[in-house]
């Protein structure tokens, strides 16, 4: 089972956080601090896995953004790496050539996509088409919404 997923920038700025098990604010803050400092201090060409307490931390950098996923000890590290990759692919498909700014300015969309992909710390749906379809379906509801807030180009 996955425990949490964090996205942060090279400067250690948090971009997205998803906690799959209940945690107090203090624990969350500590984890975020630990993760950014651990992951950002890794040398290039090290492996993508880390130990943190009894958890495994799987991280991967995509351009300026770090994706950091914590899994339980008996889980499969390579598979977790592919979870991250599939999420990036999903973001890319939705935003079209996704970049960090897309995620900053539309972070709630990134959460919605994540909620369709993972649920309760487990994989819910792996098909890009299926996830896209359900996100589209929810987005359709906003067509009559004329607020400029959503003027973002939806499907790249």
């Amino acid at each position, binding site marked *: 089972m996955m425990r949490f997923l964090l996205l942060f920038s090279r400067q250690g700025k948090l971009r997205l956080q998803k906690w799959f098990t209940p945690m107090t604010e203090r624990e969350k803050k500590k984890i975020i601090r630990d993760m950014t400092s651990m992951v950002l201090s890794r040398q290039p060409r090290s492996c993508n896995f880390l130990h943190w307490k009894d958890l495994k931390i799987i991280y991967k950098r995509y351009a300026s953004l770090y994706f950091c996923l914590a899994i339980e000890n008996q889980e499969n590290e390579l598979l977790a790496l592919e979870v991250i990759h599939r999420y990036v692919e999903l973001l890319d498909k939705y935003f079209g050539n996704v970049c960090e700014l897309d995620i900053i300015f539309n972070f709630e969309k990134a959460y919605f996509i994540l909620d369709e992909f993972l649920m309760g710390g487990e994989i819910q749906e792996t098909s890009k088409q299926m996830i896209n379809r359900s996100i589209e379906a*929810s987005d359709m509801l906003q067509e009559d919404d004329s607020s400029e807030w959503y003027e973002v180009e939806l499907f790249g």
Partner: protein
Amino acid sequence: MSDVVEKTLTALPSLLSLDSQPGAAKLSSTSKLGNLIRGITELTSKHEEEKLIQRELTSIKEQVSSPNTSMRQMKELMVRATYCEMLGYEASFSYIHAIKLAQQGTALEKRVGYLAVSLFLNEDHELLLLLVNTVLKDLQSTNLIEVCMALTVVSQMFPKDMIPAILPLVEEKLNHPKEIIRRKAVLALYKFYQIAPNQVQHIHNKFRKALCDKDPGVMTASLHIYLQMIKENPEGYKDLTASVVTILKQVVGGKLPMDFNYHSVPAPWLQIQLLRILSLLGKNDHSTSEIMYEVLDESLRRAEMNHNITYAILYECVKCIYTIHPKSELLEKAAKCIGNFVLSQKINLKYLGLKALTYVVQQDPRLALQHQMTIIECLDHPDLIIKRETLELLFRITNAQNVTVIVEKMLEFLRISKDDYTTTDLVGKVAELAEKYAPDNEWFIETMNTVFSVGGDVMQPDIPNSFLKLLSEGFDSVEEDRKLRQFAVDSYVSLLQGGPGKLPQRFLQVISWVLGEYSHLSEELDPATVLSLLSKLLDSKNTSSETKSWVLVAMTKLCEGRAGVSVAREVSETYSSSLDTALRQRAQELQHLSQDSELRARVLPRDASREPLEVDSSLSFLDGFVSEALAAGAAPYKPPHQRQEELAQEKALSLEPYGLSLPISMSSCSIGDRQSPTLLSVSSGLSGDSIELSHKGGSATLKLDGVKRVWGREGYLSKRESVEETAQVEVPSPLRSPSQQGEADKSHNQTPTPTPTPEPEQEKQQLASSLFVGLGSQSSVCLMGKSDLTNQRFRRKARCPGTSSGSSEITSNSIVSPPSMVDSLLYNNLLDSNITSELDLASPQSPPQLSQDLSTANGTCDVDLTDRDVTANNPSIIRDNGVVAAEDPDKPTDLCLSSHLPAELSGLSRSEITALCSHQSLHLSACHVQGDDSLALVVFILNSSDSDVQQMLLQLDSDQLEVSSVSESPVQEVRGDSVVVCQYSLTVKRPSVLVEVCGVMSFMCSVGTPQSVQFSYKLPLASFIRPLTVSTEEYGTMWLAFSHDTKQNLTLMREDRESLTATLNVLKNKLQLHVVEIIGMEGIVACRLLPDQPCLMHCRINAGTLAVWLRSPIPDLPDCLIYHCQRALQEH
């Protein structure tokens, strides 16, 4: 694909600065969030950011509370508030508005509302209760998207207590026509299963339906639940094996829709899930494993493509093959596959290869031999993670010959590691290896010194405990014991003389105890020298007061002669005015005992170890005191929870601001209490009570209870934390062993580091040969082959007379007894609460008293251990026998054993006789018999050959049960063609749904080699339940006194007016409960857990279900009982 993403992301930094860039068109230039984000990026200091955000939050706060804000604006405000929270600023004022948005908004606004709620709130946040109605409404909505949102939020966070309210609606969704809804419902139920397994027990059948769903996505989702359930009870799901194999075959064969492919690999997540389930099902089960060999072979073959995801599948496949019953052909393929991982240039794959190796070397150490050069390379890898994983692997292949090199490598890593968690873990492993395989005294003490100084304050407390226990109990030879102790003393003296800087407190405690106890062994050592070293410790600022009391106790043991007395006087004067009561007491003891050497010799005798110590756990010696106090008008003692209840009653409102405060006893143990560290846990809890007791005596007039609550748990905790933190800041100084210091009498060079050679290659070769010694093909038959008896230094003395007779050879080499969970937890707590006086080491240690220790000491509890020792005589036979004994437990015994049942047990209700295990012609079976006030376990030992079996020793042990033998003299032999019956009486120590008794039988066949077999016997807790006859009034008072409870709804047996009576009758008959009274729609029931632990049950009919509330003074008992009630009603 990833390359494309990475390229586009690289273009990013330039975008941040200017809006005119093409990419910026996407960004909403006028949105308020956009403005905020841009505003933040332009700032230069943290302080400015803070100001900006505070301004932003104030403006958001104003707007959300304005009545004119529309839901659409609210949605935008919530997004901004969540953004501020993500940056680390609190926006708690918006929580309630997020809930409102989820409640009242249109679908789109709702989505943001739900998102904000799930980001803002925690599972136990009180505001979440307000969300329950919204979720209920949305679950019933006709809009699919709203249903999806509700299911998503439910699986993200939902108050545990409210699950019953929405459960029926979620369950209903399992039949929804849309697969996406079914899938989400299954996952939501999975989440419920995790946080409250009891709640979803009744829908197991529906899970099966989900498993057979026509949509593969729903089926995949249901596997999460199955994996969990199979993990808990593999026996219950063996029938699924064939279906799982079929599914895997179809997946591997590419029969699923293309949608499920990931980079043209068919449904990898599903494959891995299935492989995990298979390995759980096939573990230790030959026939089930048989079914899956073919599909595993196919999976290995198909996963050829060179992509991360196929490696992930391969890894899982290999693990599965090594978990299930072995098949040589598959093992060979899997081993080759591991080779691909280990030899890969990709570092991630190498890591996984090491992990896989670590997993498999336990079964086949030769595999490590094949990859030794790679392992050596990984050991020097610049990436610490790889290094750490390699050490894990080495730990698994350690034997008596390579232990020094491997431990050296581990210590090397420990010195550079900064992570507390890793240190704790590794230090424990080093200590384990050192105790198990130490080649000589010097090496052992030096290694433990490093363990203590590096591990210091983060190591598990059982490490110093078992070290001291090992020193004090000694081994087979008195001379060896003396040498070991003397070396320890010498090593510590020279360490202290060297002015070691800061040493961790635990190490100082060990040092002071050893010096106090054994420094007389070193003849040239003057007690005055030791005393002055110890008093230097006392003066040091870095010594905690807990350690100081250890030092004082050590001084008490040493203060002989004129010099000793004067030092003692000086020290005791300093500390008898200390603020710390424990220290003050120790100082008093020191003062008195130093003046009265006769008394001291009686209280602290030298070398008086090994007499078992009787601990009066009932504290009967206080009876006189108590009765006096009672006669003087003191209120009788009530347990804390009862007091709590009464207090709550008196005040009508349940006010529990601080909870129960823990009694802190500082000085309840006198110096006369001679206890070993491990035993302290027992006494401290009790002495805590006794302090409580004396407080209570005064509380009749003073109301001390109330006073205590003001300083409740919270205040105490925070204080303690700060103490711990400061303790951890101390950096252990690098420790020089006495030999390196050159001050010890002999210079030792026990760590055979490879001699430096100019060529690094050669160095590696050398390292390899020292690391992998003992793993070669000839010695792999017996890992311990060359480690003959002299090599095993720390051989614990056989304590049980039974084993010493003919099979003393079987005596265990293993010193490490598995730490009992409860015990170590208990001890942990005690350490934390600074109960210094409990750590009284004033005297030589007592032998282990725990039954578990006994069984370990006998060394017969493990087939492996037995094997290892006897292989010298006849390796092949023993090995084969061992395997047969372990794997073929179900050999049918056709004889009618029931006629051998003891006469006093006939006529009582009993379980079926089940076969436990067999070994050649020896068959063990057992059954349990339920008496009115007892539960007997009867073990039948049938010898079907004509030769006798001798020197038989049957030992039973259990975590949850107290096992005591009924027959006076243990059976020692079984004649040919006869049956011997052993009878045991069982009582429950710790309730659990299923309790298990594990046993080992060691014996000697006519052939002459000692053998042993293991078995286990499970029985339901319900067998220990008996009716408890009480009146309604008694029930009432008991109900209030019990603190552990659980509530649950059960299904009723019938729908008519008599349903309550009918249901209770079923329970009464099946579980032997006593129905106290039935009044209208309510009924009260009582039962006891043998021998006399009550459990009360209150039932009420509520909306077609039976609402049951159970209470008991025993934790876990209500939960276990409700499970059995549920089962009883289901089976009916």
